[in-house]
């Protein structure tokens, strides 16, 4: 009866035990990201120094896909420059659109656990919420 195993271990782990879901008092960029249709609502908090993301976290409510995706994202972008982080974001969107090569998907490390979203149009917005908010947050920097 359980036909599809989309909620794999990587996804459920990041959802149940997120590493980066907490407050970040010394954040210097905070931006809310919302999916009005589903009620996903996260606050992305970043500490950016000299163009490098030195720390990051998120708070808020959302489905497992949006939470896990944001948590995975933070694990990948902390320590990276803004440009590197935005480039990963582009790659992630490419994967979600089903346009990324296997090599490109490999570069996305754990975020590649979300590649099947490409076949789930209703959930694309959940998966990209964190990445989209990141792009908005860094845009004005």
């Amino acid at each position, binding site marked *: *009866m*359980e*036909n599809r195993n989309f909620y794999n271990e990587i996804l*459920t782990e990041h959802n*149940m035990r997120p590493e980066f879901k907490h407050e970040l008092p010394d954040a210097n960029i905070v931006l809310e990201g919302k999916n009005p249709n589903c009620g996903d609502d996260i606050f992305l908090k970043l500490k950016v120094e000299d163009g490098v993301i030195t720390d990051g976290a998120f708070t808020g409510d959302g489905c497992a896909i949006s939470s896990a995706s944001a948590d995975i994202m933070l694990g990948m972008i902390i320590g990276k420059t803004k440009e590197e982080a935005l480039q990963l974001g582009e790659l992630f969107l490419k994967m979600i659109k089903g346009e990324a090569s296997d090599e490109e998907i490999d570069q996305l490390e754990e975020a590649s656990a979300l590649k099947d979203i490409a076949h789930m149009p209703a*959930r694309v917005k959940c998966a990209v919420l964190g990445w989209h908010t990141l792009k908005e947050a860094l845009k004005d920097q």
Partner: protein
Amino acid sequence: MKRDYREDFPLLMQNETAYLDNAATAQRPACVLEREKAFYETENANPMRGFYPLSLAATESYEEARKTVRDFLNAAHTEEIIFTRNTTESLNLVAYSYGLANLKPGDEIAVSIMEHHSNLLPWQMAARMTGAKLHFLECEQDGTLTEETLTKGIHEGTKLVAAAQVSNVLGCQNPIEEICRRAHEVGAVVVVDAAQSAPHMPIDVQKLDADFLAFSGHKLLGPMGIGVLYGKRELLDAMPPFLTGGEMIESVTREGAVFAELPHKFEAGTVNAAGAAGLAAAIEYIQGIGFPEIMEKEEALTRQAMEGIAKIPHVKILGSERPENHTGIVAFTVEGVHPHDVSEILSSDGIDVRAGHHCAQPLLAYLGDNVATRASFMFYNTPEEVEKLVDSIASIRRRMGYGE
């Protein structure tokens, strides 16, 4: 005569999933599809315009459908039935036409907290444009609107009351007859959203004494894009048109126009005659089965679902504990699992449900849940489908990593 009604529904026969999202839209029986097809194949012309036989046939089908709806609601007059696109358009018609012409600064509009956004946003708009104020009638946790809430919330300053007959989240039935009595005592009119009630119970607008009542065809086994507004004749007569243009005039000069009589005054432009004919076929189909059997079947399915879900730890049903107070709607939350993940898992098990805020954000915020998953039943659903639903819900937390 009890029989398997599923055979009447082509989609149900071809589709293996358990369709439990009937409160969003129902499936259509073959007789409705055939009626629409027959209209376009044998009667298609612009109704009320031509003097040739085809146009007369189209007009007749359209006006016959109006009579069918009148009987269905037990309205006093056929011209009290206005065809619209859906409930939302019907409610907007009342807000823009009646609301803007009659509400004044300081007047109160009493709106139940459980309204679908379509019976709330038009009143927010009317309040903004006229200076009237919104007052919320807040329900108990099980959805009950108490007598005290009604007496206190509907008073001399109240000019309009907007209430759903059945909540699209809790499934509870509101005391429309009492609401109308109370509203009329203080000189207010009542606008009833019957989108969730019309498919599941007999409605008698004269007995309810409702001033306006709206429902959609598509939730009632009819086509999408056809809906109904019932209004008392004296109210509709005094109201200005909502949309203006073709079909709704007596005469037009360079400077102005004399509007047509009811109901055409409110049916501007080419109407959805095929949709109206399809809706009439749907009503006749429902009448052929009869509400007693429909209600008995739907209550049994609801009871089975609620009893099954009640045994699952960490799952909470919204609203009353009594299946008879749910009108086939069972909204629930699974602790620690977002409704979108719940519905994703149900979907992977071949079960179609709705997840989210159900266009009733103020209610869910008031109840403290914000989002929920909703299963909703129709008489054509089966105990096997309900069993499948309950089994799948029972597996969700384990599959989301919560262990056994």
